Structure formats: structure tokens, C-alpha cells
């Protein structure tokens, strides 16, 4: 029996999903890396296969997606992260109309027609402000673990005002706010507001129709999710494992090819 595999090679992580021919998820894996390349993609896939007690020969079709999708020479096909995140989100939450994905260095909003078909999308195309990398830099400037930023921000009553235009300039602003005695909690809340504003304008470009699903690593940040819900005036659904939505979509496209599902 063959399985379908999807690998999402992002700028900060490599994610793999293995689906059985019945469409059930056999395993998934997310690996962090300083350099995300073909080796990282391979490692992620092998670890997922190991967890599913399978070897490489079991893979009937492999689809790659993400920023590094074309660097994986052992893939059968590459499909953009727009299509894959849409497909993955639709699988997890049928009837989703809007997908917001904030990854390591890109952010996107995808509008679907309710049947899983992409009808429009908007992506950041000039800089990585408001993405995972932006948050990493800010966490570093504040000396706060990245995974604690979300919860901390919820304690703020007065978010600081921070530019949403440039990661480097925003870092300077954060340092300057610290020097002026603003609390870390308010600064972090301000950072999340900046991300929220940026995504809000992107959502306006692509069009907002609930229900909204959020994917990507930044979806684990409860502070960003809270800001988005307020600005969009609608609940934002976060899957249990938001980082694998793209890889899941890729695996579903692979499943189509092996006649499964």
C-alpha cells in the first residue's frame, strides 16, 4: 500500500505529513533549522515516515510546497503554498472562506469559494515585516522567549505604537521604547497590533468572508490571534497544529495522484 506525502519547506521550518491511501493522517513532523534546504526537507520526511513505521519506498507520490519547494529534487511535483494552505485548511475546516497564513518570512491571505477553490489571494511582496521573522527579531530585542510573547501581550491595557512597515526600523523603535521605560508587555502588545494591522489590510485586499482559519507558526501566538479577531470582528479558528496545514494540503494533492481519499 502506498502513502501520499507532502513536505512544506519554509524559511524557518520543514514540515512533513504522511497520509494513508484512506486519507487518514499516518504521521507528521515539524523540524526547526537555521538553514532550511533539501536536507532539512529530507530529514523531516524521513522522521515522519519513521514515526509511521514506513520507508521511502512506501511513498507513492510526493508534493512539495513552501518557499523552498523547488529545491527538493526528489519531489514528484511542487505546488505553491497558496493552493496547499487552502486545501489543507479546507480539509481541517470544511467550508472555510478565508485563510490567513503567517509563516517565517511570508504572510498571505487566501479567499476560497466555500468549496475549497482559491478565488483570490494577497501576499506580502516587498518585505517580511509582520512575519515570524519579525517576531523573532522583536523577541530578541526584548529578551523574551518567542513562545511567551503571545500570553504576555494579553496583559497589556495600553499597547505601544509600533511601525508595521519594516522589521529593522521596528526593532529600533522597540529598543527606543524600552529605553523610555515602556513595559515589555505594552511593547509586545504593540508589536502584535502592528502585525494585526498589516494583516487586516491584506485581508481587505483579498476579501474577508467568514469562517476564517489561521495557519502557520504565528497562529500559535494567542496575542496575534486575539488582535486579528478584534480587527476582523470575527472568530479566527486555529487548527490544533497550524504549522502543518501547508504540508497537509500538499499531501492531499499527492493523495489525488495515487487515487486515494
Amino acid at each position, binding site marked *: 500500500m502506498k502513502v501520499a506525502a507532502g513536505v512544506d519547506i519554509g524559511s524557518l521550518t520543514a514540515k512533513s505529513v504522511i497520509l494513508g491511501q484512506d486519507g487518514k493522517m499516518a504521521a507528521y513532523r515539524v523540524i526547526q533549522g537555521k538553514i532550511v534546504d533539501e536536507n532539512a526537507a529530507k530529514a523531516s520526511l524521513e522522521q515522519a515516515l519513521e514515526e509511521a513505521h514506513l520507508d521511502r519506498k512506501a511513498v507513492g507520490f510526493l508534493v512539495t510546497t513552501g518557499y523552498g519547494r523547488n529545491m527538493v529534487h526528489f519531489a514528484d511535483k511542487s505546488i505553491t*503554498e497558496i493552493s496547499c494552505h487552502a486545501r489543507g485548511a479546507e480539509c481541517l475546516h470544511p467550508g472555510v472562506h478565508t485563510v490567513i497564513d503567517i509563516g517565517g518570512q511570508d504572510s498571505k491571505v487566501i479567499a476560497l469559494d466555500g468549496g475549497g477553490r482559491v478565488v483570490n489571494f494577497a*501576499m506580502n*511582496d516587498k518585505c517580511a515585516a509582520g512575519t515570524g521573522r519579525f517576531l523573532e527579531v522583536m523577541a530578541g530585542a526584548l529578551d523574551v522567549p518567542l513562545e511567551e510573547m503571545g500570553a504576555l501581550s494579553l496583559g497589556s491595557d495600553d499597547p505601544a505604537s509600533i511601525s508595521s512597515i519594516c522589521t529593522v526600523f521596528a526593532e529600533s523603535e522597540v529598543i527606543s521604547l524600552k529605553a523610555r521605560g515602556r513595559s515589555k508587555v505594552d511593547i509586545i502588545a504593540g508589536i502584535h497590533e502592528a502585525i494585526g494591522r498589516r494583516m487586516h489590510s491584506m485581508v481587505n485586499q483579498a476579501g474577508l468572508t467568514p469562517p476564517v482559519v489561521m495557519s502557520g507558526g504565528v497562529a500559535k501566538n494567542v496575542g496575534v490571534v486575539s488582535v486579528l479577531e478584534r480587527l476582523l470582528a470575527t472568530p479566527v479558528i486555529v487548527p490544533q497544529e497550524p504549522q502543518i496545514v501547508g504540508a497537509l494540503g500538499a499531501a492531499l494533492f499527492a493523495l489525488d495522484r495515487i487515487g486515494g481519499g
Partner: protein
Amino acid sequence: MGESTVSEVLDKFRGVIEKPYEKLKQWKDAHEVKVVGCSPMHFPEEMIHAAGMLPVVLQETEEPVTEGFSLVHPFFCGITRNIIDVGAKGGLHFFDGLIFNDICIQSRNAAFTLKRILPEAFPLFLFQFPTFQDRETVREDAMRELEKMRKNIENLADRRIDEGDLARSIALFNQNRDFLRRFHDWCLRNPRGLAFRDRQAVVRASMLTPKEEHCELMASLLKGLDQMNPPSFEGKGLFVSGHLCQSPKTAILDLIEGTGATVVDDDLYTGYRYYALDAGTEAGPMEAITGRMLDRSIPVPTRSEGVLRWGEYVVERAKYCRAQGVVVLIAKYCEPHLFQYPFIKSALNAAGIPHIMLETEPEVVSLEGMRTRLQAFLEMLD
């Protein structure tokens, strides 16, 4: 045999557009003929040719803007930045004259900037063709401005342009446009026949080469193309619209076709727009030139008042060439295009034609992001 002829001619064209100003200087030294540069779009080059000089359309080079950077406003588009930069570096000194079209604030300011930094280099003229074409007096206004330019050109050439000279030049330019339209028709029938970048090279070479030479080469090219057996067209066809004045960077032309789609037709200035219309020969030559400039069968956003129906035009062209989608390429800071884009978008939406807008930077950035967006757009067409 067809392929080798085609390959030879394309090599010549590619050579012409690579480092165009250096090649033009070499040409001028070898031929001792005055060279006059015209800024895009649509200055009647026939008038310059009729005066015995070589007209060329100023092109954007691949060099990054450096010295000229301090001379440009942030809102200058790629080609105006580039022309100013090349001028600042001394790359335009061989020209005997420059004519700028007053079609937008960037073009006008480019003229003023060059005049300021190169006051002694060459005569520089600003051609002010009437923008508001719905007025009753537009024909006489246009003729008057064209007559002014004719006198400037005569002074540059130090000779009169008589009606016979002008009529012969118009006939030659019409012939060149006819060759280019026949080439266009071949590409329409054989979308996989030549890469988009090569089709652009054919047109751009016409803007930089004596028309006599270009016509000869086009005759060989068309003969060679007729002998070729190009691959049949499968997959997704795209209509590429926009990019006034300047050719999209080669990296972007390659990127569009590198996604697996095929460009089946376009309305770029360095494409169909350049050769679509002839100067009619029924009336006198100045009337013919005026008539061609006033012809609005191809919507021209730099000579219009209000809404243009450019969107409806793109819809018709996309349907005619059976494109599955439209790529609207907008050069950053191009106000005439940006003003029209919402109407183009509405028209494409109303017609149910999938489309994507890509804004191109003065210098190429973030090709990967553009590639992802284009690929995602093509996946939406599945």
C-alpha cells in the same frame, strides 16, 4: 534551414538591444549620420527619418541606477530614472538631439533634469501633444505642435523636410509595422514558436535600428519562421497587458514563461502597441502623422481624458487570443497606468476573465515572490 535563419536574425536583434547606447554610438561613428533619441511613447519618428537622421526610442538599460540617483525624485519610474542615470554617466552624449514626450510628470521632469545637468550636450525638446482628445480643436492643436517639432527637427538636421521626404518615410515605417504585424500574427498562430523575450527583442530592435535594415531582417525572419515547425501549443495561455513606455525586464519575461504558461498575446508598448497602427496615406503626410497620433483604436492612457475603455479592450484581445488569464504588468510609479487599473480590473471581473496584477520595480526585486504569485494564479486556472 528556417531555424538557422531565425536564429541568426534573433542573434542580431538580441545584440542590438544589449547595451543599446554603446551600439548606437558605434553605429553613428561608422555611418556619420545624426542620431536623435525619442522618449516613449509614439513620437512620430518618421519626421526625424525624413530629415535624414536616425530616430531611436530611448530604452531602459540593465545597469543599476547609481550616479543619477541623487537627481531623481522617489516617484520616478524605472525608465526615467535610467535615462537620467545614463545621461549623468555620459552615456547619452553621442546623441545629436533628444525629444521628450510630455505624457506624464516623470517624462516631463526627466527632460528638465537632463536639460539642467547636460545644458551643452545636445538640443532637447519637449513635445506637447494635446492630452484632451475630445475637444473640437484637437486636430488643429495637434498639427500645430507637430509643425513646431518639424521646425525643431529641420534645425537639428540643418535641412528642410519636404512633403516627398515625409511621405517616403511614412511608407517605410508603415512597411516596418506591416512586417511586425505579420510577425505578430505568426506568433499568435504559434504561441510556443518563440520565447516572449525574443518577441520583445524583435520589436525593441526596430526601435533602435534603421528601419531599412530592420525591414530587411524582418523579411528574412518571416521567411525562416514560415519554414519552421514549432511545437504545438498546449497548456495555459496568458495575455500580458500594460507596461507602458518600457520593456519589462528580461528576468520577468522569462519568469512568466518559466512557470509553464505561454504568453499568447500582449498590448505592451514594446509589443503590439508599437506597430498596431499605420499612418494613413490618403491625406497629406502631416495629416497622416496627426491622424495616427489621434487614433484611439488602441486605448492610450497617456493621451486621454477620464476613463478609457482600456479594460474592455483587454477583454476583447484576451478573448480573441483565447487566453485563459491576463497578467497586468504595471511599472511602479506609472501614474497613467495606475489611474486606469481599477477600471481594467472591473472590466476583467465583469467578463469573468481571471487576472493578476504584478507591479514591477525600477530594479528587479523579489523574483521568488513574483514567481509564487504567478504560479498560484496559474493553479487557480486549473
